């Protein structure tokens, strides 16, 4: 039975599944990376995702326009990000806890709106799979990489873009300096507040897209609490990836691949108790991190509110 696990079909299946599963994690975690790089911890990602997911679904269902759905999700996520920014930057609220508050609010609101506006579970015709001409026909690799959903491609394109912005642009430099040493940045004329507002709104927007990727691309349905902890895992992945987009990509892929591996283990009937199988991605993520003792430090100002010394 275990030998079946190494057959080509299964391996292709695991990889293709992993790429799909990683999509919402990627959007959300890249967004969170920007925020954390600028020194803010946002634990409300899950709430932003759920509201974004609902917004996208509802708009897509009522207008039939998928892109309008994505756009609405972006606006909703951005609004939540804006609220978080105000609470964090202007009110100096304890970031971990305000994040949990936003999470609960997003969870409750998305459910409430779902019950009042839709009432029952429905499906929508979401973004279709796009076969990239030529590449999608390559045996094996074609199926894994080039026959995915549009929003899936978007998530992966985001990684090099995020890397470029963070490391090769002035904006990225400002973000990083605000996260490492806000006092110094401030004295050099960088507006700490504006940068943090930017990263949090960006993070919220991306979380909204993450939600939309679930409700109108990958799953084509909305249900209360459909993310089921995804947002928190995404935040954890930022640490796993050492605050670098490429690291976050690695973390999201690793976590999702192990998840799809455990699905296959169950499907193939390999005698592992289902609870143990489900545990695997979490246990292995910790083990990998232990094994690769990282020397990378967190942004020094992470979770500390910035107050100008007078």
């Amino acid at each position, binding site marked *: 039975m275990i030998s079946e696990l190494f057959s080509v079909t299964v391996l292709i299946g695991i990889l293709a599944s992993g790429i799909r599963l990683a999509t919402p994690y990627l959007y959300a975690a890249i967004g969170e990376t920007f925020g954390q790089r600028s020194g803010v911890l946002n634990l409300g990602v899950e709430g932003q995702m759920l509201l974004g997911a609902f917004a996208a679904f509802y708009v897509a269902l009522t207008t039939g326009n998928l892109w309008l759905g994505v756009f609405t999700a972006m606006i909703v996520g951005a609004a939540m990000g804006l609220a978080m920014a105000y609470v964090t930057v202007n009110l100096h609220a304890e970031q971990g*806890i305000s994040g949990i*508050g936003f*999470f609960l609010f997003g*969870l*409750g609101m998305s*459910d409430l709106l779902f019950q009042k506006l839709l009432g029952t579970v429905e499906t929508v015709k979401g973004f279709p799979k796009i076969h990239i001409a030529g590449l999608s026909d390559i045996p094996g690799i074609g199926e894994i990489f080039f026959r995915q959903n549009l929003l899936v491609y978007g998530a992966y394109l985001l990684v090099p873009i995020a890397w470029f912005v963070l490391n090769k642009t002035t904006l990225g430099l400002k973000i990083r300096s605000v996260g490492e040493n806000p006092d110094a940045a401030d004295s050099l004329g960088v507006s700490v507040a504006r940068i943090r507002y930017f990263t949090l709104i960006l993070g919220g927007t991306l979380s909204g897209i993450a939600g939309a990727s679930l409700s109108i691309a990958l799953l084509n349905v909305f249900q209360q609490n459909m993310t089921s902890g995804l947002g928190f895992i995404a935040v954890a992945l930022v640490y*796993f990836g050492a605050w670098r987009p490429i690291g976050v990509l690695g973390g999201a892929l690793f976590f999702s691949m192990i998840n799809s591996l455990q699905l296959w283990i169950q499907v193939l009937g390999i005698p592992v108790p289902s609870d143990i199988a489900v545990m695997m991605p979490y246990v292995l993520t910790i083990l990998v*991190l232990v094994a690769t*003792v990282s020397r990378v430090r967190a942004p020094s100002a992470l979770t500390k509110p910035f107050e100008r010394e007078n």
Partner: protein
Amino acid sequence: MKKILNSEWVSRLIDSLLPVFATLGALLVGAVMLLFLKVNPIDAYGALWQGAFGSPNAFAETLVKATPLLLVAIGICISFRGDVINIGGEGQMIIGAIFATWVGLTFTGLPGWLVITLAMLAGFLGGAIWGGIPGFLKAYFRVNEILSTVMMNAIAVQLMNFLLRGPLIDPSQAELASKIPQTARLLEIFRLPRLAPTRLHLGALIAVVLAILVYILLWRTTLGYRIRAVGQNPHASRYAGIKVQRYIVLALLFSGAFAGLAGATQVFGVNYRMITDGSSSGFTGSAGFNGIVAALFGQLHPIWSIPASILFGALLVGANSMQRMVQVPSAFVTALNGLVVVFVVSSEIWRRRRQRRRLAAIGQDEESPPPGDTDKLPQAETVA
């Protein structure tokens, strides 16, 4: 002189009531939402009040709800003071409960008081292990505690499901085809005795006593001093000879231990068995997260966490009652919960500003530490 003292006293009172005012602010926003839902806010909030405080029974329910919150909050006070973020309370509660339940199911021949004590200690131990592991990983492997605690939470849930469906399952369930994941019932003598003819159990009293003890620990013992020192300034602490890594582990370990105790009291004081619906919040009632909020309400001070937990417990119990009486969707309650958290957390800034103004008026110009805090930066110590 008298005038300043009086006004400071009143001023400080207002400060400590700030979370209450913030909560009221959140409830106001909630009232607007209720209007959209075509529900009379007065009816709804009246139901909330009745559910939390409206009768001795209701108040007992509030206290029962507040007990795990307080225990988790006590632990959070320790960890946050050590500058460690512990969001692993859910998992630590579960593991603590498992340890305690195992004791209760195994040592059936021993006297009740002995088993209860052992079980509470077992719960403490279980939570300590589950908190200590992320602590150890952070101190010696630089694994960030947010990541490890989030993962450990998920692992704990699956472990719970595995044990409750398998080795620990109620023998009477094991015969049925449906196999509900629950353990056998604890013997009558093993249950935490009840105070008054309500559901209020000894766990509440234990929690209050522990709150006082932890206050003493944090501010009157060397251990507590060192934890706080490491939390405020790890570099200076290291320079002063404090083994920083050890205290990071201890901060998370203790914090987990109290969450584990919370789980144990839930089993021994409320449900009399360990039971779940397969999710983490089905067993814990999200006390692992809500305890963090309660600790914040209490400004990370164990004694203040007592009224804070009661207030938050009242909110949760009252909200459920409101859902019942006015038939508001439970989702509204969750959203309201979130609003309260955000509002209270945001109100901190006013407390700090007022504090600074007060101190400036008296002549100090540094921001003073939170109430009850009398520490300074660590001085050089003779290395033990």
